[in-house]
């Protein structure tokens, strides 16, 4: 449904997007995730047609809509796509119903059809009682629903979301995740969703593109990202908690703890939090760090230690009685579950 081919975007001397290619089928929920400045919002705006690519192409359903090489872009309204802005961009001088109605009016629908459709989407989002209010008279969560309702009213085939939940509080964010997925399924559309929050990516996506510095680090399903991260960046970015990386110098963890299994290599070894345990005493398989924090989650406890640049997290069964200033001994399993080269790429 969406094909992106070696997409580039240059702002002056700054290359925001550096050759991105991916494709997702109809009905997919694609999440672009990465730290701020990684180029994810720029890709979304190129998908919407609000920015033109410097080079590369975008096609929707086999039909090219942006072609940077030829400087050719189909205007936003003729792409069958709708966009929810991070700021919601509700028109402040129109009521909730007016906001939803206006795009339909521009599309030339007659009054009865419009009224019917506005009613439908108001009901779908559960905001029928707000129809006559103005945007500044409703809460942030309600504004968010209005923005979504306005986007889906003209029944676009592609739904674009630019960090839509980042202005909401934590509890509302969890609720709206479910709500968004419901809307996605109800509309039978293909969605592209931009966020910096990997939890949103892992919980909502069918396809995830982890981005960093204008490139895709890995494009895979959420499960695949956790099981087989392609780069060290992905390994430490996704998962709750994310995986641990221990630097390896000349076949020894941190240059001190030699291990024959490492065969004299350099790079970094990945250990999942559930593979680490805590030891009573230091040994030749433990790394000693300073206690940082412990937090209970789902019946188990996440314990984190820190020393220098190294930060390790282990999952234990009971709340340990550490206090600040204590040392924690992390016991390594017989072998790391994955190894990354000094360039940060997974080694075979």
């Amino acid at each position, binding site marked *: 449904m969406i094909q992106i081919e070696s997409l580039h975007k240059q702002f002056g001397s700054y290359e925001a997007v550096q050759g991105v290619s991916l494709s997702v089928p109809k009905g997919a929920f694609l999440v672009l995730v990465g730290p701020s400045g990684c180029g994810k919002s720029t890709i979304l705006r190129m998908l*919407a047609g*609000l920015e033109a690519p410097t080079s590369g192409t975008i096609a929707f359903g086999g039909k090219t809509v942006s072609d940077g090489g030829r400087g050719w872009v189909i*205007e*936003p*309204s*003729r792409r069958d*796509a*709708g*966009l929810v*802005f*991070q*700021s*919601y*961009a*509700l*028109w*402040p*001088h129109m009521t909730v119903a007016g906001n939803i109605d*206006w*795009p339909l009016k*521009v*599309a030339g629908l007659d009054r009865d059809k419009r009224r019917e459709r506005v009613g439908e989407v108001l009901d779908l989002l559960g905001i029928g009682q707000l129809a006559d209010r*103005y*945007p*500044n*008279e409703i809460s*942030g969560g309600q*504004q968010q629903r209005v923005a979504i309702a*306005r986007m889906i009213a*003209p029944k676009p085939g592609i739904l674009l979301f*630019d*960090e839509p939940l*980042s*202005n909401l509080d934590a509890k509302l964010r969890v609720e709206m995740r479910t709500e968004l997925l419901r809307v996605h399924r109800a509309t039978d559309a293909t969605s592209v969703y931009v966020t910096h929050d990997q939890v949103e990516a892992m919980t909502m996506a069918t396809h995830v593109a982890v981005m960093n510095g204008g490139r895709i680090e890995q494009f895979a399903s959420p499960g695949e990202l956790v099981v087989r991260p392609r780069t060290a960046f992905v390994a430490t970015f996704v998962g709750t908690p994310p995986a641990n990386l221990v630097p390896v110098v000349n076949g020894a963890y941190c240059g001190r703890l030699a291990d024959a299994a490492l065969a004299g290599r350099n790079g970094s070894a990945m250990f999942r939090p559930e593979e680490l345990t805590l030891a009573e005493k230091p040994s030749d398989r433990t790394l000693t760090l300073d206690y940082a924090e412990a937090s209970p989650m789902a019946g188990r406890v996440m314990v984190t230690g820190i020393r220098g640049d190294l930060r390790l997290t282990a999952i234990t069964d009971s709340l340990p009685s550490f206090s600040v200033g204590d040392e924690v001994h992390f016991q390594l399993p017989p072998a790391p579950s994955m190894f990354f080269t000094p360039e940060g790429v997974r080694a075979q």
Partner: protein
Amino acid sequence: MIRVPPSPSGRGASVLSDILMSTQSRNRSFKDAFLSPGLGLKAAVLVLLTVLVAAPLLKVFGATLAPGAWSAWSDVLASNLSRNLFWLPLANTMILGAGVATGCVLVGGFLAWLVVMTDVPFRRTIGLLATLPFMIPSFATALAWGSLFRNARVGGQIGFLEGLGFSVPDWLAWGMVPTLVVLIAHYYSLAFTVIAAALATVNSDLVEAAQMTGAGRRRIFLGIILPVALPALVAGASLTFAGAVSNFAAPALLGLPVRMQTLATRLYGMIEIGQAERGYVLAILLILVSAFFLWAGNRVISGRRSYATITGKGGRAKRFALGTARLPLFVAALSICVLTTVVPVAILIASSLAPSSSALFSDWSLHYWIGASDPAIARGQAGIWNNPLILSATGVTVGLGVTVAFSASLVGLLVAFVLARFRSGFLSAAINQISFLPLLVPGIAFGAAYVALLGAPIGPLPALYGTFLLLVVAATAYLVPFAVQTGRAVIQQVSGDLDESARMTGAGFLRRLLAITVPLAIRGLSAGALIVFVKIVRDLSLVVLLFTPTMPLLSVLAYRYASDGFTQFANALTVVVLVISVAATLLANRLQAKSQPWLQS
């Protein structure tokens, strides 16, 4: 040790509140005696404001109701005089108001749109230039117009264009058209500032969201941008309307010679010829007209659909590409700015150097500046450097500016503090209302009110008419609303978290005052004081009725010289006023690093 109890109003802590609060907590018996903290302070501020602002307004109203004066109302409103006394001036005033408001919103709105929303080149320069005309006093622009377009109809010197051999028609030289043009050239920057600030808050997401629907440019403009900017357009219109109907200088210089009267010039004339009661009636009517439109504009803006603050996170500025229209629009904008700033000032300077205003750029001499008395020129008036009256006027003007800068800032800070510290209650509400009252009162009407209040002795107090004190008191009262705004900004900067976080470190009152309060407040306060200074130095409408030969002021002298036909003296004096006010304005801008959000990319 915690010595300071939580303040009842939560925030709003500041220097003075500290004094109050720490005194309260250190000395319980004192606190107990002081049943309602702040009552004394509030009452004192209210009395001060009442004397400064309310008393003259009540007095001018009372003066028209006195036995014997009552007939002034019927003279003005319903007699065979009233057509010339009131109705024709009212009609002219309304035409001026409507014309200026329309012109200003169009010109200011056009420039604001260009600067804020498009990719026009040199946006910053245009944005800066567009704010300048309001700093040039309107009598300067009016004098410059005269130097260019004067024709021989009323006698005296002819202007530059007639000197070149063109024949300037009367409608272009005198009366409504030139007054309209001059006032638009003066007030459009006010509309620009208001509209540009509003457009800058229009998130470009709003426009992109409309683009996503497939709406065309025209539809987006009419359906989204215009309605969102409407409150600002209304605000710009009502402010410039009120400014135009209150303006005295332009209609007096360009309209009076051909007997075009406005309420402001009529009111001036009545008081000058000694018919004070009729003048007071006109002043009251002028206040009503001006206040009504400000009130109406405010009503339209506030209300359910006031949408100045909508969630703004994540907004980015994307500029509207002008394409081939980029250059022509730039040239148009630049022409407007240059014609309303550089050109009038250049004409004034040239005219002050040229012996005859019909030949602005030849035979330049410094006679009008430094020449000694010469019976052949200007009836023997010496150049302004050798003219004792002008030198003393410069001294009085600057002295008045400095004094009022201090007194108004002090009053403003005091009022702002009381309002921030004690937000609720009848007294605070009254203080708030009265402190903004002068905004609704045209300067010339305020001057008339002060003539009514202090022109005659009150009990044992002597009449203040003709004294420096009268000028100081009237000018301070007139600038109270502005000074209160400055004071509020300063108190906001200093109070609350900043002071509280310093208090958490255990710093004592004096230490916080020196390390936190003073460094934060000093810039804002001095910038505010400088702007008060400028407003007084270039003011004509307030002081024109308070002027006496013993207390000469530059602006009034310039007006008198212009009325008497000594154009070059008037222009030279205006240049002096301009230099003083521009220097002070630049300094003020530097001090407050003026925030112009619409200039940021």
